[in-house]
């Protein structure tokens, strides 16, 4: 066994997730009901440690640029799909495509798979052998460029690759 119980649950990681979940409870419950909130926050933090979720580290200077990029992608994605849904002839040309992943960090890959569903016309299916299976609404759209740009942005903000 690579990790002992003490390593797993008495660590910086446990402290990080506990503080995060306690803060979340404090915000959402308005600082009330701690007799439920503390056990729930600790249980959630233990689950995060058990699943091996690392402490979030990122480059603070890259955050504003990433947020701007992400918000623009979110608006473009929502507008694109809304336009297709509202038009009477519904211009769709769906297909499955495969995106070769550059990111090696599992955290970058996980966030990419989650965030790609908010980009215009792309949806993550599964990660298979360094490729991300994507469903695209219209395969004539420049999906490759937009996913590659998102991947670059994520790797940059998470500190993978050159600064």
């Amino acid at each position, binding site marked *: 066994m690579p990790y002992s119980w003490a390593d797993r649950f008495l660590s910086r990681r446990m402290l990080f997730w506990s503080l995060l979940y306690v803060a979340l409870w404090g915000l959402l419950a308005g600082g009330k009901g701690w007799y439920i909130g503390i056990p729930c926050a600790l249980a959630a933090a233990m689950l995060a440690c058990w699943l091996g979720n690392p402490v979030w580290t990122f480059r603070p200077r890259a955050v504003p640029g990433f947020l701007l990029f992400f918000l623009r992608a979110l608006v473009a994605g929502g*507008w694109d799909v809304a336009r297709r849904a509202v038009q009477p002839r519904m211009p769709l040309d769906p297909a499955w495509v495969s995106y070769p992943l550059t990111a090696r960090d599992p955290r970058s890959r996980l966030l990419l798979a989650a965030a790609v569903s908010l980009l215009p016309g792309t949806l993550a299916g599964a990660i298979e052998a360094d490729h991300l299976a994507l469903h695209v609404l219209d395969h004539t759209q420049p999906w490759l460029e937009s996913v590659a740009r998102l991947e670059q942005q994520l790797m940059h903000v998470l500190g993978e690759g050159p600064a």
Partner: protein
Amino acid sequence: MTDLLAWLSGIALVFGCFFFVAGTLGLLRFPDVYSRLHAVTKADTLGLGLVVLGLSLRAESWHAIAIMFAVWLLVMASSTTACQLLARYQREQDRNPEQEDDDALP
């Protein structure tokens, strides 16, 4: 100033509702599970974001804004995760069509 904020808030709320309606239209009209997931995930996340923006502009306190923003982030995280899980499940079903799906509607 207050008038301006009220107008901006109203515009954001109207656009938010538009995206919710468009997402629902997509859910009803799109031909397959994956395309429907596109509609629900993207349009509803943006719709909720605009509703949160609109309500933030007329919120009484910073605390209320922080709560709404946290709710938006949590909904965004859960909707992208649920979307991925549903897409993966349907993909496996498509690959093994001989397996009967007890929960699926005819």
